[in-house]
């Protein structure tokens, strides 16, 4: 063991600061409550856009999206209208474990599939297409399989039966706990990172069960968080005093009232034209299109020279951006504005890959879930989901109250790795 102490980094995907505090206070998560008494819990911001692939890429690299190159779960490569799905191979910056000298165990960090050679153990998180390419070193695969490990809950089950979904969620978490335990005991490490991702899945489907004590799944919702808390408890019980413990989430969550489809609005107002005679999806965007949106609410100008049927000339860009921003500032559904904030590229992105960044990013208002919805017939609709991401209300926790650098206003998830580095420097000076 290093005399300088080890670093343990626990991620709770999508868990909001407010919810965590409440569940700690009401006894659902007693181990977290114990932790909060001996450390600092901060409310921080997520990335823009506030989705896991972008946020976790920023967390593990400490970089802005325009530095690590991940802007969403889907992307459209330049000169095409082909939807692609960026993964770990697309990440343009190194994660912290490839920059540190020590040995790391990295378990279930989203968007790190397929795994590659590193100093330690790496089991990727969602979206992982198969277990074979999710485990490094490959020799570990048989043990991981023997522990019934699976990367992610089968969220499709929730569309069939919530009971089936919850059962699968529980099995997935149990197996994750076993693998965590196995790696803790059998691997040598200086940094141990685990992310619990079932929390995000659960909150998407059952946020209403969190808020409503009469809800059929109220106990099941809290039961999952208690189980996560128990695994966290088993980790902290094994920590040494000089070990650094950091916990965080990648974004917040709140109740969802409506899906609102950005492309449907762009189409309604003449910014997007779609030719159904073409071959489908974004390939149907025709040459009159000025802008289109990718999930969750990233708007790209259909620029000449950038896309196959791009029509927007450089001199026209500013005016179109202005018009679109104005449209979404005033756009309301049921009397409620759909956007809480609207950002232009240069306000939020900086780095070598800024040309790949969206020109505008919209942040949905409370209860409004913004989606691409290219073929949606209506601009808004009800949905079976009851929780949606927020850019605000993510959390950061650091054990120990001494020698903690301050968390300044505007702190977001991409600052966490830098914060841990300064924490180490402070504690081990």
């Amino acid at each position, binding site marked *: 063991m290093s005399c300088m102490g080890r670093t343990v980094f626990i991620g709770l995907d999508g868990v909001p600061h407010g919810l965590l505090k409440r569940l700690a206070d009401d006894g659902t998560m007693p181990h977290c409550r114990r932790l909060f008494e001996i450390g600092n819990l901060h409310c921080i911001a997520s990335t823009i856009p506030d989705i896991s692939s972008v946020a976790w890429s920023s967390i593990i690299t400490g970089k802005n999206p325009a530095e690590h190159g991940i802007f969403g*779960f*889907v992307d459209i490569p330049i000169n*095409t*209208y*082909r*939807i*692609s*799905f*960026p*993964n770990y*191979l*697309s990440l343009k910056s190194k994660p912290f474990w490839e920059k540190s000298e020590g040995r790391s165990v990295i378990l279930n960090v989203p968007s790190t599939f397929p795994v590659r050679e590193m100093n330690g153990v790496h089991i990727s998180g969602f*979206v992982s*297409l*198969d277990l074979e390419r999710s485990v490094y070193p490959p020799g570990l695969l048989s043990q991981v399989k023997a522990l019934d490990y699976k990367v992610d809950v*089968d*969220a*499709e089950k929730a569309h069939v039966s919530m009971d089936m979904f919850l059962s699968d969620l529980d099995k997935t978490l149990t197996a994750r706990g076993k693998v965590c335990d196995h790696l803790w005991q059998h691997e040598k490490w200086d940094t141990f990172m685990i992310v619990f991702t079932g929390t995000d899945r659960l909150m998407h489907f059952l946020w209403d069960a969190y808020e409503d004590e009469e809800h059929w799944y109220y106990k099941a919702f809290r039961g999952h968080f208690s189980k996560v808390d128990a695994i966290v408890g088993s980790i902290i019980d094994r920590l040494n005093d000089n070990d650094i413990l950091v916990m965080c989430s990648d974004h917040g969550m709140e109740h969802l009232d409506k899906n609102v*489809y950005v492309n449907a609005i762009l189409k309604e107002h003449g910014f997007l034209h779609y030719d159904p005679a073409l*071959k*489908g*999806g*974004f*390939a149907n965007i025709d040459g009159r299109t000025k802008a289109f949106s990718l*999930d*969750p609410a990233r708007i790209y100008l259909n620029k000449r020279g950038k896309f196959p049927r791009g029509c927007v000339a450089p001199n026209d860009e500013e005016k179109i951006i202005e018009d679109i921003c104005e449209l979404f500032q005033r756009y309301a559904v049921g009397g409620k504005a759909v956007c809480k904030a609207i950002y232009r590229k240069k306000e939020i992105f900086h780095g070598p890959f800024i040309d790949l960044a969206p020109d505008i990013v919209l942040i949905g208002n409370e209860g409004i879930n913004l*989606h*691409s*919805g*290219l*073929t*949606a017939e209506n601009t808004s609709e009800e949905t079976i989901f009851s929780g949606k991401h927020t850019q605000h209300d993510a959390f950061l926790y650091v054990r120990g109250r001494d020698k903690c650098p301050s968390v300044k206003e505007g702190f977001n998830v991409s600052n966490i790795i830098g914060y841990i580095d300064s924490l180490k420097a402070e504690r081990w000076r």
Partner: protein
Amino acid sequence: MKKGMHNKDCTCWSCPAINLAGKVDFRACGQSVEQIKKFQDEKGGGHIMAECRRRPELGLYDPMAITFQECPEWQDTEYGYLLKNMRVMILGIDGYLGWTLALWLGKLGCKVSGIDNYSRRNWVKERGTHTVVPIARMTERLHAAKEVLGIDIYFRELDVLDKVALTEFLKEVKPEAIVHYAECPSAPYSMIDFEHAKNVQSNNVIGTLSTLFAIHEAVPESTLIKLGTMGEYGAPLTGRPLFEGFFPADAVLKWQDKEWSLGGELTPRDPVSFYHISKVQDTFNVYEACKYWWLRSYDVMQGVIYGVHTDEVAADPRLRTRFDIDEWFGTIINRFVAQAIVGIPLTLYGAGEQIRGFIALEDAMQCITRLIAKPPEPGQYGVVNQMSGYYKLRELAETVAAIGKKSFGLDVQIQRVENPRVESERHPFNPIFSKLPDEFGFVQKDNIEQEVSRMFSLLLQPNIKSRIEEKRHLILPKTWWSGQKKEVERIELYK
């Protein structure tokens, strides 16, 4: 449709070089492509992703986004875009069709592999007959293919019933298309006695089942092209159309003043021998496997095949494909030509008014290639009726006789004999066979007159003629569907 480019709009969705994966368990949910696409777009997080094994640099992407026309791996050929160095495995590669297809695809640039356990050679030998066009041993065939045509064929002696070995071979080769010819193709052979019926059904039905399980385990993304037969449908006396496997959308069943749509349902099968029954059982096994495991298959309801020619088999005597003329394995036009050459009257069973669909060897090769070039979608069980025309058998006999007389100076007679089969001898026949020309760009190249002339030219070669003479006593049928073993009596002889 532009000739040859029938598959230009196909996308990675149906490409066998693509791994499909995603958050939607589309293999189990039974949703149609359109529903999945809608789900992907509107619900978010439910994307299906493509991962190209040939172009890993593309990463993960929307499987509908790239067409064959746009993909550099799909190259322009006479028969549509074809995957560069496409790996095609032929089950039953030593047979009449299998060997011809191996050379044909090899010449087109495919990487051909195949299995055979020489059953066909053994069945023919067991009946005391032989292929009248001499064929080389497999080692010599492979050597000649390399020497004459520059084609490398990867062969393994293997029984299709050996599921474990077949699975291993599939895992090793990873074919992108599999053409399944490894069946006993003879109705009379299946009617000899119990042992023969059992062997035909076991080889065909269990062999196909073994193939399906092996594909499921080893290469589920590969296309299975399975040889069926037009004989599965029988010849309904009502004259109702013989659709291509399924009823069309507007087909209706009317009964007792009520109507039901039949659209999309499998059409009735009415097999006419234990062999044909094995093919019908295959149909259901393949159909269900596509449903259960999202395999992709075309079932090819082939008309009666005839002919000797492709450029490749004609390139060298060692490359010739087999040609059988006996009562068990000789197909009717092939048999007529052999009879004409050795002075046996062309033999019709019963009235000779039976109508059948036909296709020439070279045209059949074109059809299979076009099917390979336009793979079915995941889970799709497609059926095509593969024939280029249909004729009364009596008219065919007259055509062969006329060519024999006019072009080759032969004195050809025609006879009607007792019909050893149980079948309709006068019936309407209304086959639908528009899919191959309309959807796959098939254009008939070979007409009967041209191919029959080629057959006469080849079979009149002295060494081949003498091989026909040797087995002339095995041409007329002695296998009765009733179980009797006796010679048929002549009903009528005419010129």
